[in-house]
C-alpha cells in the first residue's frame, strides 16, 4: 500500500516541478522548481520501486545508491547553473541583491 502512495506522491510532485519551470519569472526561481521537485520526486519514485521490485536485497540496495547519487549531484548542478547565469550577466528579479553589492 505504501509503495503506491509514494509513487503517486512522486509523480504529482514531478508534475508541479514541470509547472513551476513554466510559471516562475526568472532563471533562479525556475531552478528552485527544477532542483527540489525533481530531487524529491525521483527519490520517492526510486524508494517505491525498491519496495515493489521482486529481487534479492543486494539488488534492491542499488536503488538506494541511485537515490543517493541524485541527491548529491542535483544541488551541485543547480549551483553551477545559477552561478554561470549570474556570471553571464542575467539580472535576477529580486528585492535585495547582496551578491551585486559585493561584486560591482
Amino acid at each position, binding site marked *: 500500500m505504501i509503495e503506491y502512495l509514494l509513487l503517486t506522491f512522486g509523480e504529482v510532485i514531478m508534475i508541479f516541478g514541470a509547472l*513551476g519551470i513554466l510559471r516562475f519569472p526568472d532563471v533562479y526561481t525556475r531552478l*528552485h522548481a527544477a532542483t527540489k521537485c525533481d530531487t524529491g520526486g525521483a527519490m520517492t519514485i526510486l524508494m517505491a520501486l525498491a519496495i515493489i521490485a521482486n529481487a534479492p536485497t543486494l539488488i534492491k540496495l542499488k536503488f538506494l545508491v541511485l537515490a*543517493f547519487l541524485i541527491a548529491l549531484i542535483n544541488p551541485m548542478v543547480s549551483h553551477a547553473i545559477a552561478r554561470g547565469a549570474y556570471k553571464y550577466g542575467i539580472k535576477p528579479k*529580486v528585492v535585495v*541583491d547582496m551578491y551585486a553589492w559585493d561584486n560591482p
Partner: protein
Amino acid sequence: MHFYLKERLEDIRRRVLYEQYKTQRIPTWEKILLTWIVLFLFWLIVSGNSHPANLITGAVITLIISSFMRDMLTKDIRPKGSIFQKALYFLLIYTPQLAIIMMFRILESSIKVARNVILMDINPGIVKIKTDLNSDTGITVLANSITLTPGTLTLDVKKKLGETYLYVHWIDVETLNREKAGEKIKGDIEEWLKRIFW
C-alpha cells in the same frame, strides 16, 4: 595601527587552527581502512553478487585504489575515538541520521515549492550568511543541504579574511539581518556538521 593589529590577530588565529589540524590528524592506516570500507561496500552493492571470487577481486582492487586515494574522503574529518568506534559511528549513526534528516527536508521543500507554484506568493532575494565551517568538504555538504532545504538555493561561496560567506537565493525573504537569516537558513544542520568536519 588598528588594522595592523587586526591583521596580526587574524593571522595568529588561522595559524592556531592550522596547528590544531596538524596535530590531530588521523594516522595513515586508519585513512586507508576507512576509505577501503566505503569503497568495498560500494563494490558489493554495485556488482550485486556474493561469490567468493568476486569478493576477493573487489577487496584487492579497492585496497589498491584506497592506498593512493586515501586523502580524498578522510582529509577533513575531526578525529574522535579509535578506528572501530569511528567506523561504527559513521556507518550506524552519522550517515542514517543525515539521510533521515535530509529525506524529510526534501519532502517538505517539494511540497512548499508546489504550494509556491500554485499561489505564486514569491518575494525573492539574495542574502549573505556566514558559516563557521573551515574545510572544503564541510562547506560542500553544508551548501548542498542548504540547496535542498525549503526555499533556498546556494549561489556562491567566498572566503575572505579567514571567514567563509555563502550567498543564498531565498525565494521568500523574511529578514535581512545576517545572524537571523543564518539561523533561519542553516537551522540545526551546521551544528551537526561541526561535530564531524573541520
